């Protein structure tokens, strides 16, 4: 067994890898943004008066949280076209990430909303605000602040999960890496390198989240 580590072939492909990393970042950010929106709307629906709507949200959350992402993305990519819903790999990836992240976001944000003191809501109502306004203006921000750490770590996991999108031939870091691997057969070097790149991506995400935290949630609490 004379296998010598040789990273040069990997570094030759660095520009492609960086583009792939950028694509991963794009998928992740798009997925996260949609997931946050799904999360907020989902919680609003979960708290609404209509029990059908509440049931749908609960069903959605439980199904998504208890099945693997790989199966979800296969389902969207290979199975939904049978129902006439066809999306290209990139769109499929974003939808899958949004759906997956959204289900977790609903659960997490709901926890935050439940922790808001009833008095806050009553104070809003007593001022004459409507229920929807109370949710949007008074409940949401403190709720998000209180669950911010778990939400962001869930989003980092989502970013890492995006590597699975290679299975439907979406363009992102892992798929770029696999093409390089199949050209060079330098499997270990390639995967080791992009593992480091993923690590850097998650560190970048963490600093981004910290920045957002400082910007939006920096109001003092007791």
């Amino acid at each position: 067994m004379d296998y010598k580590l040789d990273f040069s072939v990997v570094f030759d492909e660095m520009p492609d890898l960086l583009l792939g990393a950028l694509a991963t970042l794009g998928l992740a950010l798009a997925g996260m943004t949609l997931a946050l929106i799904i999360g907020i709307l989902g919680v609003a629906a979960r708290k609404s008066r209509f029990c059908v709507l509440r049931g749908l949200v609960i069903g959605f959350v439980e199904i998504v949280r208890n099945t693997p992402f790989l199966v979800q993305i296969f389902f969207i990519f290979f199975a939904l076209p049978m129902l006439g819903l066809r999306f290209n790999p990139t769109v499929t990836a974003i939808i899958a990430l949004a759906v997956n992240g959204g289900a977790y976001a609903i659960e997490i944000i709901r926890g935050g909303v439940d922790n808001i003191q009833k008095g806050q809501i009553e104070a809003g109502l007593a001022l004459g605000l409507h229920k929807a306004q109370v949710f949007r203006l008074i409940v949401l921000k403190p709720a998000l602040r209180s669950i911010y750490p778990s939400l962001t770590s869930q989003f980092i996991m989502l970013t890492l999960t995006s590597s699975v999108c290679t299975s439907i031939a979406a363009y992102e870091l892992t798929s770029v890496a696999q093409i390089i691997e199949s050209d060079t057969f330098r499997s270990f070097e390639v995967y080791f390198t992009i593992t480091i790149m993923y690590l850097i991506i998650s560190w970048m995400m963490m600093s981004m989240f910290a920045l957002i935290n400082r910007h939006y949630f920096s109001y003092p609490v007791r």
Partner: protein
Amino acid sequence: MNIIGPNEILFLLQGLKWTILLSAIGFVGGGVFGLLVALARTSNWKSLRRTTAGYISVFQGTPLLMQLFVVYYGITLIGMEVDAWVAVTIALTLHASAYLGEIWRGAIQAVPKGQSEAANALGLHYVSRTKDIILPQALRLSLPATVGFLVQLIKGTSLAAIVGFIELARAGQIVSNQTYKPLLVFGIVGAVYFVICWPLSLYGARLENRLAAAAAR
């Protein structure tokens, strides 16, 4: 060949057997190493704490898929000869130990300080203090999160498909390709995962409520 008959179901069930086996192995391995990680993470020895913090941050900061690949291809480079499933086991163990280690670290630190002080004052040593006093309480506190992670791990084993393992997700893909009924097959596969994971999730949520109720008392 175009219908989903007993053969196909049997094939899926064989995949399921692997899914369960891989999950069990990952959970046991991750549990043992995770415990060490948690203890190291809460030790008095600063460099040990730092090292394990780094370990956790690396394994929580990279995709499980990459961990599978790197271990799969990397392990032979250090001169060991292993089967695919050993590599998958190692990768899942490393992955699970980082997550469980972090969960249990939190739980260990959530045990009131008075408990370890009382143990100290009684003259109990590190081993007895940890084994008899801290861990039983910490494990109880961490049970909901631990069950939650078990669900993640079961779902995570589906990635072993990508390194060629014929577990449930992969079996589903193969059957889908033989029967040309992806909607149905992925539906079934999803349902099987759901049937395994959902009771666990519910159990975890119930434990959490019970802990919250106990804490509120």
